[in-house]
């Protein structure tokens, strides 16, 4: 990293040297001194650390990936949309907005129009509560969504449009912390659906996806910890997420000597898979119970 910054500084200052040399006649010595000074600052660690930000995948993307791996539909495993109005507290609403978004993607990807409709109502209701209502009100999105529920291609395009509108809305209003909490709910629900609905035939493929998702959990925890949002009321959820991540990290045999995982080939044993599934189910109950 230090080497990178030094090279970068050298290039930047070489450029500046030629530019300034022609226009202002600033002496070589001054520029060299400045370069040396900045490199010394960098060596001593005085230069600012990189500013980090995270992008987390949407519920639709997670659902699509599981679907491509052969995850089928299982009746009755999605959250109860009638509970949408019962969640109080902004963080709880954000988490459950994520849960219902994952369920909505799951039912749409499996052409379950009737269930999709009631989940859409739940998502819309919670979106108002968390201040994201305008995402659905843009260009009659909600009405178009409702009227296209039977048309798989159109509805998938609308889900993508909702995601894009949400990303723009988040950028415009600086709502990163809120989206991290939403993703927390969507991630747990996606994992829950993945771990509940696999069978003998698709188990190998689905378990690879679960491992891939567990690796993304590190990003989610870092993202949640990077904000100064007050999350005391959902501290148990944070503890649950960290517990799953710690458990996942101590499974050595899925990593090579450098600690890397080959997600195309990884195989996880039933014992660990069962333990992870059980931890996910516990956390999901914590989030969705009323």
């Amino acid at each position, binding site marked *: *990293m230090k080497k*990178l*910054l030094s090279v*970068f*500084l050298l*290039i*930047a200052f070489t*450029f*500046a040297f030629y530019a*300034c040399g022609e226009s202002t006649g600033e002496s070589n010595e001054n520029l060299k001194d400045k370069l040396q000074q*900045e490199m010394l600052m960098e060596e001593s660690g005085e*230069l*600012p*650390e*990189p*500013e*980090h*930000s*995270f*992008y*987390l*995948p949407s519920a639709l*993307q997670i659902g*699509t*990936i599981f679907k491509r791996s052969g995850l089928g539909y299982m009746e009755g495993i999605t959250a109860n949309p009638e509970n949408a109005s019962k969640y109080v507290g902004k963080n709880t609403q954000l988490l459950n907005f994520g849960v219902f978004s994952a369920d909505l993607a799951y039912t749409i990807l499996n052409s379950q129009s009737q269930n999709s409709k009631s989940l859409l109502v739940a998502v819309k209701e919670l979106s108002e509560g968390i201040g994201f209502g305008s995402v659905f009100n843009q260009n009659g999105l909600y009405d178009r969504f409702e009227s296209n529920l039977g048309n798989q291609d159109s509805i*998938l395009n609308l889900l*993508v*449009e909702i*995601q*894009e509108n949400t*990303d*723009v809305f988040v*950028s*415009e*209003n*600086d709502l990163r912390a809120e989206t991290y909490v939403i993703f927390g709910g969507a991630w747990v629900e996606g994992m829950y659906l993945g771990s509940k609905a696999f069978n003998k035939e698709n188990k190998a493929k689905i378990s690879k996806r679960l491992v*891939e998702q567990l*690796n*993304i959990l590190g*990003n989610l925890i870092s993202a949640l910890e990077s904000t100064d949002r007050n999350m005391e009321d959902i501290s148990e959820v944070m503890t649950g997420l960290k517990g799953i991540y710690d458990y996942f990290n101590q499974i050595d045999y899925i990593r090579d000597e450098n600690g*890397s*995982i*080959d*997600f*195309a080939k990884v195989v996880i044993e039933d014992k660990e898979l069962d333990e992870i599934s059980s931890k996910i189910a516990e956390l999901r109950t914590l989030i969705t119970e009323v």
Partner: protein
Amino acid sequence: MRKLLILSLLLFGSIPALFAQGCDWEAMKSESQDKLKPFKYYAFKVSKIIAEEDPLLKELQIPLFHDAEYRFIFHKGELPDDVKVEIWNAPANFPGRKLLFSADAGQKVIVYDPPEAHVNNRIFINYLVPSIEDGGSTSGCIVFYSGFKH
């Protein structure tokens, strides 16, 4: 109540103004959107860039799914040519990380389709902003717009 209203107007009124400063992100996004086909939308992020006396490194982590196909589009708008866009396989503080892609200097709109070998769970986008001489500053933004094949 009136004070609260004024405070709210000041607060919320200033956010779009800050967001828009030196950054016509809507036009940049629309230009990027045209280059996305045949991929479907995956991610969009605007990173505000303020170049000042000290060089700046902004890092953006993007999670990827190992067998999906992606397209990344970066729009630098009116930022100077020497603001660099690089893609790495690990974070900036990781020793021995590998550079996967570096955009040519001077390119305003960069389109990159990562080969399958580079798509392993996540990538790290670095925006390198050199320092500005004589205490000046330049502000703008980089629009990251990306798609994947379902």
